[in-house]
């Protein structure tokens, strides 16, 4: 597709269950980011993938959170043993690099609700 695609768009899960969120970045983009956003708030950085480099995991809030990026393309964010405080919109973005800077293209997000 032409843009960043995230699935599912909405996910309701029971507390304690595991969830997987998927991100299909724009083809050819070497950088991929995951962010978390609570209602009306800014972006909370989670993890950053850049090419074949080791990912920057410094934003992951606990060891229940993990992410993979297979083949430099699709990424999956996994949350194990979900808690109610994990409820938020999870946004994925991808970017490439140019002389004029780096534009991040965002997906529409996955709204996660833990009940």
């Amino acid at each position, binding site marked *: 597709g032409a843009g960043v695609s995230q699935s599912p768009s909405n996910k309701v899960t029971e507390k304690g269950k595991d969830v997987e969120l998927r991100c299909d970045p724009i083809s050819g983009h070497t950088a991929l980011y995951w962010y978390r956003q609570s209602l009306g708030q800014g972006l909370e950085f989670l993890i950053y993938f*850049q090419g074949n480099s080791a990912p920057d995991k410094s934003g992951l809030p606990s060891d229940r959170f993990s992410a993979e990026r297979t083949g430099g393309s699709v990424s999956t964010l996994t949350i194990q043993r979900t808690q109610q405080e994990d409820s938020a919109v999870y946004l994925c973005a991808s970017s490439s690099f140019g002389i004029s800077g780096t534009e*991040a293209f*965002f997906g529409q997000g996955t709204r996660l609700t833990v009940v």
Partner: protein
Amino acid sequence: TQLLEQSPQFLSIQEGENLTVYCNSSSVFSSLQWYRQEPGEGPVLLVTVVTGGEVKKLKRLTFQFGDARKDSSLHITAAQPGDTGLYLCAGVRGGGNKLTFGTGTQLKVEL
């Protein structure tokens, strides 16, 4: 501690008013961007500035990059309800690749 601090955090104004949003850091950035996010959507790029002191205008929006490339401002003239949204600055630190987002400014423009 956030790398990019925005102020104010929230702003509610009447249509026709002017406003300025600030994005500040103690670090130097090779480029800085401003995004706007509307409800239910991801942020969308408004502008990129790369040169210290640079000023860019986008209709009623004026963006400035500080001379030392540590800060930026967004000024909106004669705000309209369509300007309502979350405004985010983002920057790439000198020598790096990672894009870092600011804390965000939630703007509401009322009739």
